[in-house]
Structures are given as C-alpha cells and as structure tokens.
C-alpha cells in the first residue's frame, strides 16, 4: 500500500470572517467551525458552548486541561476519508494522497472534571517537554451541559467527536492547496517484500493501544480497541487517522490522535525501510484490564510475529502500571518466538528517581528505550494567559493539592505535561 503525504506548512493562524489557507496562514472563522461541530447530535446534546483561541510558539500561554491534540488532514485522492469509521465512512485508508496541515494542531480543552488531562505551555521550561509548544494551536474549549458529571462517557465522546470534526473542517481547507513538500510511504505484501528486499531483516511495529476502559480508550476504524483481538495494520493507515485517541489517562504518556497520525516509530521505520530493514507492517494490540485478555492479546502478538516470519519487532507502550505487564508479556513472548525486540516505555521511578521504574520486568527485555521518569518534579512559571482553566491543576494526574501555588506557579510531576514522556519515542527526553 502506497500513500503520498502532501505537507502544507502552516506558519500562522488568524481569526477571520472567512476560512482559508493562504500562503502558509490559516484563516479561521470560529462561528463557522462551531456551526459545523453542532451538526453532530451528540455534540449538540452534551456541549453547551465552544470557545476558540489561538496559541502560538513562544507566547506566555498555558493551555489546560488538554484532552486531545489532532492534526488537520484531508484525503485528496484514493479510497476513504480521514478518521474512517468515526468521521468518514468505514473504508480502508492508507493509500492515495493525503494533505497535511503541518505545523499546527487542533487542541481540545476545557472543564472536564475527573478526566486526567494535561498542560501545554507555549513557552518556559514546560514548553521544552511537550512537542505541542512548537505548533500553532487552534484551541477548542468545550463547556459541558448541566448534568454531564453523571454522563462522563457521553461527554467524553462528544468532546472527542468535536475535536475530530474541527480538525476535519480545518483539514478540508487544505484540499486544493499545493503542498510545500511531498513524501511517499509504501510497504509491500509479504511475498513482494521478500522478493524486493531479500537480504534485509523483516521488522514489524507492535503498537500497543491503551484500552483499559473507564475513559482510557483507543478506537481503530471506530472500533473500541478493548473489544478487538490483536491484528495487523498497514503503517500508512495510521497516517489517515485510522487510530484515534479517546484517552483520558495521564497526560505525559497517553498517545494523542496527533501522535497516532505522526507516529514516530512509523516514521523512523519508514526512514530505515529498504535500507537497513524491511518494514513489514504494524501489529496493533490492546492493554486490557483482565489477565485473560492480557494473555490472549500477547499470545496473538507473538503468534503474528512468528507467522510473519519477522526478525525483529519494535514495541511501544501507552500508559503505565498494569500496561507494564502487557509490555513485558509481549516482549517476552515475541523474544521466545526467536524474534528480537526493542521496547519503548517510560518510567515511574519516584520523585527521587530511586524506585523500580516499571511494575514488571524480565531479563529478555534487554533492549529498552525510555521516555524519561514521569515522576520528576518540575516548576512551571506563571503564564500571562490561560486558555481553559487552572481549576483542575491540583487534581490532574501528576498534580497534588497545592500544585497551583498562590503566586500562579505550578509545582507538579512531569506527568501533567501533555506528551512529556511519550512511549512512542516522540521526544528526546530520556533517563539513566
């Protein structure tokens, strides 16, 4: 399957009476976007109002609580549309041409009590830890209807859909824009790959999806990942939004939809594809809460690795705690099939860094890349402007009572920062 991505570099976002992309600037009319969001019945039912704001790199701006980050994309050629099974109809994506509004994102935020959401600082020390401080962000702040607290799942669904719809609307503006740069991505069928790259090691990406339920969910073509068995995906499918985040787990190591669209493991395996390895496919597997599910899913992961005659597998995790067991089970079982693994995780070594970093361990996990210790404490300075609200800083994962100090600074663990210790290896942060 071959996909061409056409990158349209967005250097600025401005509110305007019309919506368009012109010479690297996105002009957006908030009312038009809002009207499009409200065309969805669930959004109508649960969201009282939307506010819109723009946050640019280097500004003294803090966005919190952040729910999801999404990159606007539009399918311009080939089957299907973006976010298949959720926004577009279910049809296999990952081939043809897709335009990408690069350098920007749609960020959903707002009063989302009880969700484990994060902080994006656009400048200062916190900005160094989140990749989203480098983007021009169109922030969609949702305000819930009364009574949403008893219907968190419905509300989460509504905000999730709203974010995806906003990104779809913006992405559509890039349909007829000539991209600044294009790139092609192609993986081969099994036999084709063997013929074309006979001497290169066969490698797959084992992509673990958070699926613990209770608002810790990921969707694949609209299917809740916890109800799915381990299966195979073409790497290009994720670029068209086949996997989306419905995830309200700790901000630092949850994979936002943006992470799925721009999966760095996929990008780096493609960079090595045909040179030092043969990138065969992605294997997606879940992180469920039952031991039987964990056993079944990791058995299947290992089985697929064997069936595909892989030489190596790169495993990425999402979240921490009991998913560490999924990670280790996957790693161990794949290794026992004679397939060499590297795993990417992050650490919870305590604020002093002295505790055991993972909840599980196995000697076969001898090649580990870490996204850093999420417990490390950081002081975030006061920002001139807050998009969203500071009301939840003390309660989001990684915060504590008193995290928000009287002078407006925040003392919290890195955990609170969206994407800080990402386990797809999105960042340079590490630990030793």
């Amino acid at each position, binding site marked *: 399957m071959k996909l061409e991505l056409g990158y349209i570099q967005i250097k600025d976002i401005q509110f305007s009476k019309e919506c368009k992309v012109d010479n690297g600037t996105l002009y957006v009319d908030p009312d038009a976007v809002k009207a499009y969001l409200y065309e969805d019945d669930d959004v109508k039912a649960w969201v009282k109002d939307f506010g819109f704001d723009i946050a640019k790199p280097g500004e003294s701006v803090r966005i919190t609580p952040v729910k999801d980050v999404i990159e606007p994309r539009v399918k311009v050629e080939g089957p299907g549309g973006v976010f298949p099974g959720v926004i577009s109809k279910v049809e296999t994506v990952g081939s043809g041409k897709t335009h990408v509004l690069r350098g920007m994102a749609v960020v959903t935020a707002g009063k989302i009590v009880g969700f484990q959401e994060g902080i994006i600082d656009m400048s200062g020390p916190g900005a160094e830890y989140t990749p989203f401080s480098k983007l021009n962000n169109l922030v969609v702040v949702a305000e819930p209807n009364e009574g949403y607290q008893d219907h968190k799942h419905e509300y989460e669904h509504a905000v999730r859909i709203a974010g995806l719809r906003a990104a779809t609307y913006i992405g559509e503006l890039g349909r007829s824009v000539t991209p600044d740069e294009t790139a092609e991505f192609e993986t081969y069928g099994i036999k084709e790959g063997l013929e074309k790259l006979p001497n290169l090691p066969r490698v797959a990406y084992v992509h673990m999806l958070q699926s613990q339920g209770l608002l810790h969910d990921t969707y694949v073509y609209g299917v809740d990942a916890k109800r799915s068995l381990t299966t195979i995906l073409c790497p290009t499918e994720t670029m068209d939004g086949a996997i989306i985040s419905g995830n309200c787990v700790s901000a630092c190591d949850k994979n936002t939809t943006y992470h799925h669209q721009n999966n*760095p*493991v996929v990008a*780096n395996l493609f960079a*090595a594809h045909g040179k030092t390895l043969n990138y065969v496919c992605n294997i997606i597997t879940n992180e469920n809460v039952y031991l039987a599910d964990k056993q079944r899913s990791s058995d299947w992961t290992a089985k697929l690795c064997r069936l595909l005659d892989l030489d*190596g597998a790169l495993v990425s995790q999402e979240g921490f705690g009991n998913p560490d067991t999924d990670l280790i089970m996957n790693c161990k079982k794949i290794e026992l099939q004679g397939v*060499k693994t590297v795993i990417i995780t992050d650490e919870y070594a305590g604020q002093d860094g002295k505790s055991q970093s993972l909840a599980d361990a196995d000697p076969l996990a001898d090649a580990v890349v870490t996204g*850093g210790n999420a417990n*490390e404490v950081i002081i975030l300075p006061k920002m001139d402007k807050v998009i969203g609200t500071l009301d939840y800083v003390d309660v989001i994962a990684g915060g504590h009572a008193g995290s928000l100090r009287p002078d407006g600074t925040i003392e919290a663990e890195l955990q609170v920062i969206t994407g800080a210790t990402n386990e797809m290896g999105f960042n340079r942060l*590490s630990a*030793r």
Partner: protein
Amino acid sequence: MSYKVVHYINQFFANIGGEEMAHVAPELREGFVGPGMALNTAWKGEAEITATIVCGDSYFAEHEADAKEKVLAWVKEQKPDMFIAGPAFNAGRYGYACATIANAVQEELGIPVLTGMYEENPGADLKNKVLIVATANSAAGMRKAAPVMAKLALKIMKGEKIGASAEEGYMPNGIRRNFFEKEVGAKRAVDMLIAKLSDKPFTTEYPMPSFDRVAPNKAVKDLSKATIALCTSGGIVPKGNPDHIESSSASHYGEYSIAGVDDLTAETYETAHGGYDPVYANADADRVLPVDILREMEREGKIGKLHDFFYTTVGNGTSVANAKKFAAEYAQKLLQAGVHAVIMTST
C-alpha cells in the same frame, strides 16, 4: 580560594611497586602523587589535591578495619571539600578499596566522595552507594578518565545539580535522572533494533532490575558418602601452565586430574594468577587449593571421595560474563560426574 581535595591511591600508582609491595600500610603524603597531577591540571586552580593517601591493596583487604580507621582519621584532620579515590580501572582489590573507603568517608565524615573504575571491577558493586565514574579496564584509560572525574568532582564541590549518568560519565547508581538525548526515542529504538538484529553491541537505556540470586541448594546429608570437588579462581595450574591460562582476563579455564595426588608441591603446581603475590601459592599450592587436607579426610573416611578433577581459572580481570560461562560449563561436568558438593576457593 580553591577547593581542597584528598586523594586515595594504591602502592602501584604511588610508584612504590606492584604486587610484591601490595602489603604496604597506609601513609599520608602532602600534595598530589602520581595520577593526582591529571586531576589538578584539569581543575586549573579551581580545586587542588592537598594530600594523598597511599595504601597497599593487600593491606587494605586484609586489614580493612585498621586501614579504614587510619584513612578516616587523616581525612578528618585534612577537612577536605571532597575525597577522591582511584581511578582503579580493572584492579579488583584496588577498586574494592577505593569504593569501600570512599563509602566510609561519605558515611562517617559526611564528605562528598568520588571514585572511578572499570564497570566489571568488583568495587563497582558499591555503585549505588558511591558515585563511581566508569573508566576503561586499564590504566591506559587515565587520560580519558581524569577530565571526567575532575569535571564531576568540581560540580559536586560547587553544589551544582548533577545530570544523568549517561551525561556525566558515572555508573548508573539506581537514581534515575532525566535528560535530553540527541535523537528522539523512536530513532534510538530503531537504531537499537538494527544493532540487536546484526549482533552489534547496544546499550539498553533501562537495565532490568537484577533479581539474580540463586537459592541455596540442600545441604549434603552424609559427607562420608559424598564426592567433593575442588574449584578455584586462584589460578592453580600444573607447573608450566600447560594450557596457557592468562594471568589476567582469562579466556578459558583448566580441568586437571588430581587422581593419586596427595599434596601440591612447588615442583608440581603453581599459580597463573596475575593479581596477587604468587610467591606463597607457588611455594605450596595447597595454600590456595587444599588438596592435602581433603586427601587426608578422604583417607579418614570423613568425606566419601575427593573428585578426580579440579577446575581452575584466573579471577583477575576476567569478565563476569566469561567467569559465568566457564563455571556454567564445568558445573555440568561436575553434575555428570556425580559430584555432591563443591569447595570453591578465591584469592
């Protein structure tokens, strides 16, 4: 004003002598001695070695309490800003002394300490207690080690926050610290996988916590019916070292018959070990491998039998991986031969 440092080195680096002088008792000298110069140079006057303590490696190992007491008293008197030991490279007893004395200075005097050695030096077992800079496995690594140790030491004396082990050059000490790598995690992971697939070396960023303890086996019930085997890392070999076991960093082990041998004598056996004074073992190898006593006990019926073969290698500088491989291999031979228990001696 520059910071004051007390430096600890062994007899070899103080130019007193090698193994034959390893017995020398600790002494205090003014200023720097030997490798201390490299540290002083690197500090460019910001810090200075004001006193050096020299101690023989065997002396330290055999009179640890006494050596510690003397060294601690001197360091206390000197009131330095920092105590630095070594670097010891792959010298096992020197490394053990460096780490042990540094730990004592840190714990009992509350003075910050730093040492340096090769990762597989037994002294490195204290790396979670004492800050240890990882060095090459021979003194040839001094040129590289000195600036790393000097820089880290200065940072500590200035009270600056120290970075992650990978940045600063110290051995991972169980305290995880964040830092920014040059490449993103996914790129590092792909590179690591390619290295692993092509059997090239790679370094995991998070070594799995080690639970490697083997539970003790059941005791021997009846010694009078038991076959006991002798093994040693003290390098005892038949005279002339027929298999050329290296005196350091051994690449193999020896398997020798002692069937019918009552006593190891200067004419028949010697040691191949290069890490300790060989005079005593060469004069009477029973001092390392007690064949004479076990033969006696065999005759008395105290033990069933002394196994016909003994296994030997040189512990000195031998990598843990190699030592492990050797022992795992000959343990199977012992098992097949029906050996009931093993006495392993080390020097």
